[in-house]
């Protein structure tokens, strides 16, 4: 009787443990970091959006406009970290604009700039470990 009870408790304990342990693959959040000395900012958008502060952000964008001389496009990347260090760089380089336009949701972003505030490198990485935990299943 005692053995049966002990066994039942053990089964319940194991089942509870299994139910509360989430097996969801690798998760690797990257909080935003703005390094004004080395002119580099990086972080993933999800971590920025759900940071436990009201200042963190990171992102890039493109604006295109029809002018008398044709289409003019410029892009930018901006970031602010938890210490409220902030930077915005801009670019008109067509290859860097292509990178921005190819970005996805929940990306990890890294960008660098020169002394004039022009973006010199823009990188996006779309990996499973930057995704939010409950987007459903693809089964």
């Amino acid at each position, binding site marked *: 009787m005692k053995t049966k009870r002990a066994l039942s408790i053990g089964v319940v304990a194991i089942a509870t443990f299994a139910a509360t342990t989430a097996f969801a693959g690798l998760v690797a959040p990257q909080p935003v970091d703005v390094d004004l000395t080395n002119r580099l900012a990086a972080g993933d958008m999800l971590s920025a959006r759900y940071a436990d502060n009201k200042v963190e952000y990171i992102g890039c964008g493109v*604006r295109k406009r029809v002018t008398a001389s044709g289409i003019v496009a410029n892009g930018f990347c901006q970031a602010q970290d938890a210490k409220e260090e902030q930077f915005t760089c801009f670019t008109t380089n067509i290859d860097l604009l292509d990178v921005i336009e190819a970005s996805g949701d929940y990306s990890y972003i890294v960008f660098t700039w020169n002394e004039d505030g022009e973006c010199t490198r823009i990188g996006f990485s779309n990996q499973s470990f930057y995704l939010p935990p409950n987007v459903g299943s693809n089964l």
Partner: protein
Amino acid sequence: MKWLVSLCGVQTVLLGAVALKAFALDAQIHDLAEASENIRIAVNAQAGKQTALPVAAFAKSADITSLSAADVRAIIREELSASGRTAQAQPAAAPIDRKKIQAAQADIENDLSRYRARGSMTPAEVDLLTAKIADLPPAESRAALIAMTKAVNSGEIAAQF
């Protein structure tokens, strides 16, 4: 025995029909491929580019066939640099109106001064300002973007793009 012969006859007829259909489809594919090639040549000719001529056209020219791989690479580099791969279009042939440009630059500087005094720019104001900057010629536009970005990054103007 009779039904075997009949079956062979039917089989032969069916095989013949399949072969005819296959020939017809083959001819159709050939026609479509030719039409597609003609469209591509017409589009490229209209754009004023001769970079996509079919191989047969190249083969007819004795000069083209004597080109080395290095020559071809040099030609491609020349074409790419001539096309000017930047996000800003080349200025129109009309002479640049310096007074108009200076007026536009002054307008942008006034906007920046106003935002510095306030200490901030709304996203809509950022959009309007970058649109004014986009109307400037490339060198002036770059200078204005640098000035705007410096004002934001120095903390003079709080703004999100």
